[in-house]
């Protein structure tokens, strides 16, 4: 009996040695399955976008693309996993707007610069929502009420310092209102904030149209304006901030595909091409339209620029409103 164990160990080591030995063939990329890391949970909007893209990228590359949800640390863990992975193209990730904010809050050292960008596929602009039976029919009504009673109207939509928080504060600032006159009520999700809005707990919710869609359709919530230069596809009748007030302020969340820094040029180009093909496919368009997500394309360079711009804006806003030191 006792002789079995050493033999088992020997076999194990032989197998391990085989595994460590240099690659048998350096063929065309990809040789094996690719991991697509999602920093958020299965079943959410980000996950659904990643899974759709994953299928389409898989079709183009001819190797399985396995979606992997790494949800720890409020998005930090997933973003970190992508940035720290071996730069061989076998680990890519769907990175989200939080990457431009977390480092200002001291949660991570990573920023948009920590990645090789492959393509941005989605932007969902922020919008301002109120209860359907509230007296505020337009964004001007609302801003007038804020100015008349500083501190009385409460807003919500995400965690303290989250992207919708910054969107709203940025809008107020751009309109010449002190953002701190609208106290922010933190919420765990936009859904929870909308529920609180309907229950009469808060007065304003900042968030995207796809998130508010069900309650707007149900006649419980009214959207006053969207922080973008184009009206949204879901609710084209909701005015843009610029058309309603003349103030120019664009803000929203984005999602894009990225890989670790230092990717071989050939691999980078192959992956970027696969992301673009996936983005342009009719399946992706159909999926994004059915969920109401904004289908926006930025090539790798423009994606990096977009992150840098949002990063600078977020940093300045967080400092000026005392959200970070």
């Amino acid at each position: 009996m006792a002789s079995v164990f050493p033999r088992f160990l020997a076999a194990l080591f032989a197998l391990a040695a085989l595994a460590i030995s240099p690659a048998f063939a350096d063929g065309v990329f990809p040789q094996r399955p690719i991991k697509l890391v999602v920093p958020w949970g299965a079943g959410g909007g980000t996950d659904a976008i990643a899974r759709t893209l994953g299928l389409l990228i898989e079709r183009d590359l001819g190797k399985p693309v396995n979606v992997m949800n790494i949800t720890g640390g409020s998005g930090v863990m997933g973003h970190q996993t992508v940035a720290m992975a071996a730069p061989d193209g076998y680990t890519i990730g769907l990175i989200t707007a939080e990457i431009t904010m977390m480092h200002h809050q001291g949660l991570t050292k990573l920023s948009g610069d920590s990645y090789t960008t492959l393509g941005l596929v989605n932007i969902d602009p922020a919008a301002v929502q109120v209860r359907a039976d509230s007296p505020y029919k337009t964004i001007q009504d609302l801003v007038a009420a804020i100015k008349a009673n500083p501190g009385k109207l409460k807003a919500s939509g995400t965690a303290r310092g989250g992207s919708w928080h910054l969107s709203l504060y940025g809008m107020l600032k751009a309109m010449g209102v002190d953002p701190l006159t609208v106290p922010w009520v933190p919420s765990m999700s936009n859904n929870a904030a909308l529920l609180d809005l309907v229950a009469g707990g808060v007065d304003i919710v900042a968030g995207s149209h796809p998130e508010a869609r069900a309650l707007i359709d149900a006649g419980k919530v009214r959207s006053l304006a969207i922080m973008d230069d184009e009206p949204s596809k879901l609710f084209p009748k909701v005015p843009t901030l610029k058309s309603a007030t003349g103030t120019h302020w664009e803000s929203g969340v984005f999602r894009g595909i990225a890989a670790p820094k230092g990717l071989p040029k050939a691999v980078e180009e192959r992956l970027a091409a696969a992301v673009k093909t996936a983005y342009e496919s009719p399946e992706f368009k159909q999926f994004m339209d059915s969920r109401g997500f904004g289908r926006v394309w930025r090539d790798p360079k423009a994606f990096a620029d977009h992150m840098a711009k949002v990063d600078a804006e977020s940093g300045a806003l967080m400092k000026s409103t005392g959200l970070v030191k």
Partner: protein
Amino acid sequence: MDPVHTAFALVFDPYVLVVILASAFYGLFIGAIPGLTATMATALLVPVTFFMPPIPAVAAIVTATAMAIFSGDIPGALMRIPGTPASAAYADEAYAMTKKGQAELVLGAGLVFSVIGGLIGTTILVFAAPSLAEVALKFSSFEYFWLVVLGLTCAIFIASDNLAKGFASLTLGLLVATVGMENPAAYPRYTFDRPELAGGITLIPMLVGLFAVSEILRFAVSTAPTLKLEQDRFGSIFRGQWKLLKQYPMATVRGSLLGTAVGALPGAGADIAAWISYAVSKKFSKTPEKFGTGHVEGIVESGAANNSALSGAWIPALVFGIPGDSITAIAIGVLYLKNMNPGPTIFMENPQNIYAVFIVFFIAQLLMLPLGWIAIKTYKQVLKVPRNVLMPLILLFCTVGAFAINNSVFDIGVMLAFGVLGWLLEANRFPVAPVILGAVLGHMLEENFITSMIKADGNVWSFFERPIAGTLGVVTLLVWMVPIVLRLSRKGRVAHG
């Protein structure tokens, strides 16, 4: 053809039926394995439902979760390792019954009353969803705050003989809930600069550690012979259930209604429903002293509650697209994906789809009877495997389960730490279950208190100003005061008499 007929045709399609059957077995399997939960069953199903038409996709989720919540009772009763958090509330009680040789009665009760609870919850979902959802929409943080306080009060009711130790466990759970930055201030607390801790301590690895790993450790050092199920005496699980139903009709109905109501409130789910029901059952029982010694009454009530909560959670999900729990949060994503957008319009546009979903709910509940019977029989066979072979296998499943929830090896460490902690607590007669309750409710308690204070500019009376919040607040205070007043007056009478 009218929508109801179309709906039946949609469901009684061979492909859909095969999907329902397959997901039923899948749910039973996941739920029965310690470390794998109903929420995980749903999350892991998402990629699979991606390739399905709408009705089978939703059917797969509905069936799998119902089965998983029930089958979580099985390892709880037979090994004292609850398969899902929803079974943790009464795992000790169920195991005590098994030790008394009543394994078939407790498993049968778990099955039969899960089915009854599920059927009642589904009936309410079908006939009262829109109006109930309107009520759920009146709940703001003030109302939730009181609800959570009531939930925590339950821990006191079901606390063991030693109140101080029960309170210590509960407080420990509350402290665990403060870890991480998912608090209203988004400030990282007790994270020791570890990014893994920034999101807080994940409930599932903690639960698996406290219950399963500690049980494996206890087994490893026990020199006493392990509990043997008397296989020959393992009779019909259905025997005696009719008698139970006649004995506890109130408990059954109360559990089902409470479960549906708690489930329908966004943010509370089957787990909390089971805890509250168990406490309510003890509170209103004619024989509260029997609770904890292997008494079936609490299992009847909370078993019905956790399955009805599943249906309840779909009420706000279908009517307003607001998830009632973590399972429906995932299901809503699937509904949108399949162009069955939740909202009042779901009942008007393509009503056959929503009717089909309702039919699936009923099929899933009824299917639970034969399949649950098979599952229990199979599990009994599993227990024939010698424990010293079984325990390492359970440990492997626990490890994979803890890893899979976040794809994080850190959670394996969390599981280990809480395994050792649970082992030490148990040996020193600290109850383990309140740690879980504290960790589950701690987040909600803090979030709802702080956000309420921000909304009310620090005015404490605001917790009583809204009608529902005021009522809940007064009820909570009464629940606290009445036993104290009763005890004082009784003492007074003894002193004078």
